[in-house]
């Protein structure tokens, strides 16, 4: 702390300069020997072959807001398929005059997510705010209390994707943490229950879980009782994702040294307090990167619900493509979907990096 001032006789030199300016950088990194120079030239040439036609197709020769007939006469991309069918792609079979409701619900959902990404809003208010938000969303989607009822069978498009993923994550995360703790339990019954759960679920593909939830599960229910199909898919996604989260969290728990448990014990904290205040905050922080990996793949995996005839945003796009008017523009449609998925996934991974930085406390 004080050594800098103490040793005034000591000289501090600048590190040697090895490269100067752009040219120096170019020579150092791209043309430092004949092989690298050759690779650089080849790369530039192939980019030259690919990029201009791509730009021409996507931006110069393309149409953005036309009808289907106009698209037949151009060589470029027909982006018009998206705006022309936006309502169906985004909202699917939700009654057209009521589509403001899923739109509002989605905006509300995004607002809630944006609000809670700020760590300063992680306080006692967060839970009631989410509860209220979810209640309003449920009311908007389902109706009642003055709004016409829309059955869940008609929920489709982007709201369905977002809801399945968000509630999938929010439900799977705590369940996964509990399973990880259970797997470390000293009580044999709890431990083996968790091990069986995790290994069983991880040994089965999500598709088969979805099939089971939609076809087998109703067979076990008493006659006359039905559980909503969307809800069943939602539960299957939660159960599935939780098993993966559990194993990642277990890795984090194992990274915590024995000394931390002992320090917590010697202060007189009980098991719950030690876990909640000392162990989990550290363990969960360590496993942020792999956890976000799982959440991202869970988000993308929601597109598998098409196989039990739920119309998520991927399926509504496919349906649009089967319309004879718009057939043949699948490149445009799928590119659009890719960008849409990318935006959500990138936002997640970006946020996780920020969170990691914010929670970093040295060492």
């Amino acid at each position, binding site marked *: 702390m004080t050594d800098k001032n103490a040793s005034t006789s000591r000289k501090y030199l600048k590190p040697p300069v090895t490269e100067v300016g752009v040219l120096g950088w170019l020579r150092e990194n791209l043309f430092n020997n004949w092989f690298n120079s050759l690779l650089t030239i080849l790369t530039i040439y192939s980019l030259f072959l690919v990029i201009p036609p791509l730009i021409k197709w996507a931006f110069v020769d393309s149409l953005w807001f036309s009808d289907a007939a106009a698209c037949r006469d151009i060589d470029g991309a027909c982006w018009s398929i998206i705006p022309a069918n936006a309502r169906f792609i985004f909202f699917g079979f939700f009654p057209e005059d009521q589509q403001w409701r899923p739109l509002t619900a989605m905006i509300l959902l995004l607002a809630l997510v944006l609000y809670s990404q700020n760590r300063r809003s992680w306080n006692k208010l967060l839970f009631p705010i989410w509860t209220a938000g979810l209640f309003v969303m449920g009311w908007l989607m389902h109706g009642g209390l003055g709004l016409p009822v829309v059955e869940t069978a008609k929920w489709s498009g982007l709201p369905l994707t977002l809801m399945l993923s968000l509630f999938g994550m929010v439900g799977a995360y705590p369940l996964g943490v509990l399973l990880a703790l259970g797997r470390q339990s000293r009580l044999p019954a709890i431990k083996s229950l968790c091990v069986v759960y995790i290994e069983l679920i991880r040994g089965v593909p999500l598709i088969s879980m979805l099939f089971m939830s939609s076809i087998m599960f109703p067979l076990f229910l008493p006659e006359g009782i039905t559980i909503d199909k969307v809800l069943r898919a939602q539960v299957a996604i939660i159960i599935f994702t939780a098993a993966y989260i559990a194993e990642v969290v277990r890795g984090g728990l194992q990274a915590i*040294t024995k000394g*931390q448990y002992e*320090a917590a*014990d010697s*202060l*007189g*904290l*009980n098991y719950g*307090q030690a876990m909640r205040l000392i162990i989990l905050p550290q363990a969960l922080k360590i496993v942020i990167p792999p956890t976000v990996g799982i959440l991202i793949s869970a988000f993308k995996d929601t597109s598998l619900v098409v196989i039990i005839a739920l119309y998520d945003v991927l399926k509504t796009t496919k349906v649009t493509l089967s319309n004879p008017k718009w057939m043949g523009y699948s490149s445009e449609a799928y590119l659009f979907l890719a960008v849409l998925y990318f935006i959500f996934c990138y936002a997640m991974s970006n946020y996780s990096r920020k969170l990691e930085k914010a929670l970093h406390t040295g060492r």
Partner: protein
Amino acid sequence: MTDTTAQKTDATIDQPIIELIGMHKWYGDFHVLSDINLKVARRERIVICGPSGSGKSTMIRCINRLEEHQRGRIIVDGIELTNDIKNIEKVRTEVGMVFQHFNLFPHLTILENLTLGPIWVRKEPKKEAEETAMMFLEKVKIAEQAKKYPGQLSGGQQQRVAIARSLCMRPNVMLFDEPTSALDPEMVKEVLDVMIDLADEGMTMLVVTHEMGFAKSVADRVMFMDEGQIVEENTPHEFFDNPQNERTKLFLSQIL
């Protein structure tokens, strides 16, 4: 708070604050501690030394139940350690512990490290806990670091914070498990100084250490352990100048 402690001290002044009676411990088949008998009076300072693997750390870790003993009795301030979790938690609030590797909570600031126990275990209001914490940080001469994280402090500073963290729980006994062994040499003194201050204030202390200078100047009794037994115990003066047991003599000749 102070009133009740005072009354308790008056009533139990002659009773040892820690009593180990015929205590044994095994790790699997390995007999780590054999027939340990120990009485610690209030305000007594005991230094425990011995070769590594002699069971000295294990013994003091049994006193706050970080390790479980299999036979014999351990009584701390009138509370017998049994499997009853209530008793264990009660004993742990009586006994403070300082570890070789500090074991501060890296995700919490220094101040939060200190107030965590008082707030959650002793149920103190946050403001009061913070005042106490600042008082103890002042005492270990590190108050200006309160808002930092443990990772930003030197080893000696971290260990002083660890001592302050234990003191915030207002323990009647402090256990030190090789508190200076993981420190760079130039930081040992700042930690020992804090421990000496603590001893001067009359804290009951059990210290496992190889700092013989500390033992000579502070301890009321020095104990030598080997192969899971207390081989010799005496006043520091007698212990260092006139050791009785051959193993003690050998050990002292090697470390002094």
